[in-house]
């Protein structure tokens, strides 16, 4: 991406060196304060008790892999940079920090997202040209009563066509989706689709290269979308959830089909199998303070 674009979007960037801001990711961490996530992915540490890694990186030059964890609750950038040593690294595993083992993986080298830096934070880059994506084969991240909350950050490069950053489904039924961008109108749509016949949309305007924090809360009879901490409307969530624990699919991040491949960055996605309305503002404040927007 041209540096002038980054400067426009991220004023803190001075053309090569990011201006450090005080870290807000000090204990207690986000999942310490707001536990109960069914899946949690980030390039920062989210839970003090989490002893695993952030990512597994594959070095493209020789296909060697390395699990990379955290230093002071931040992604261990020194380990990463030392490992790839000026070459390219792709993410083969994005570890689930919730403790539920819903790690996101992709077994195809060219479909693995690259790791890049945005706003002084590491983020995964999903490219529609390669159809990059990560998939969790572990199911049932969304509660079977149909209620869930998702929090995350995304930056879209290209808003033409369908772009799905996150979604989970049951067969052909999509349960939760983010960033379904329609046509050339830069009109991003978040779906909360909880039954076999009804699709519920909430729209918000998004421009290419804009970073957004999205919170989608699917309640018993409605779905609410919050963008960058502000309400973006709600929609009735009509229909009775028909999916069950036995046949709910896994989590897709980056795309489901090639025709829906996301084109952009994401450093963090957190999913709760519950209505997190009470804690929404606090969770969003934590995310916004950390990512600095």
């Amino acid at each position, binding site marked *: 991406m041209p540096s002038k674009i980054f400067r426009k979007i991220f004023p803190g960037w001075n053309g090569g060196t990011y201006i450090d801001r005080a870290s807000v990711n000090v204990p207690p961490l986000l999942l310490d304060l707001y536990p109960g996530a069914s899946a949690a992915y980030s390039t920062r540490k989210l839970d003090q008790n989490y002893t695993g890694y952030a990512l597994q990186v594959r070095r493209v030059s020789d*296909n060697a892999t390395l699990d990379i964890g955290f230093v002071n609750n931040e992604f261990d950038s020194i380990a990463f940079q030392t490992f790839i040593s000026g070459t390219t690294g792709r993410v*083969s595993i994005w570890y689930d920090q919730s403790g539920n083992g819903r790690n996101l993986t992709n077994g*195809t080298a060219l479909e693995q997202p690259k790791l890049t830096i945005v706003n002084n934070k590491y983020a995964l880059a999903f490219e529609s040209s390669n159809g990059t994506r990560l998939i969790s084969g572990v199911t049932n991240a969304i509660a079977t009563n149909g209620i869930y909350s998702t929090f995350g950050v995304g930056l879209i490069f290209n808003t033409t066509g369908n772009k799905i950053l996150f979604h989970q489904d049951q067969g052909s039924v999509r349960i939760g989706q983010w960033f379904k961008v329609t046509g050339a109108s830069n009109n991003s749509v978040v779906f909360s689709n909880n039954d076999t016949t009804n699709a519920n949309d909430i729209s918000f305007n998004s421009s290419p290269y804009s970073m957004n924090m999205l919170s989608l809360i699917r309640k018993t009879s409605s779905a609410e979308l919050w963008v960058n901490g502000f309400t973006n409307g709600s929609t009735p969530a009509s229909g009775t959830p028909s999916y069950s624990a036995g046949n709910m699919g896994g989590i897709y991040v980056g795309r489901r089909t090639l025709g*829906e491949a996301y084109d952009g960055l994401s450093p963090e996605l957190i999913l709760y199998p519950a209505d997190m309305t009470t804690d929404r503002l606090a969770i969003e404040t934590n995310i916004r303070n950390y990512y600095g927007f």
Partner: protein
Amino acid sequence: MVFRGYTYTNATDAQAAVQQCDIYYGIPKSPDDVTQHWTAYEYSQNDNIYFILFDESLLPVLGEPIEFDVNLEEEI
């Protein structure tokens, strides 16, 4: 939707192309690796075509790509 890449009329030929790439790039590096293939093929039911998306790394193995049109849009 127009893509650049390689098309095949059956799954066997597409699998063979994937295997060629795996051998060329030494994938998997070990049997337990997450990464089991270098590239993957897709199937378009609407067009009854198997295809591999282009990447520069495929040039020495699969040669020059072509442009092709497939219908992958799903009604949501």
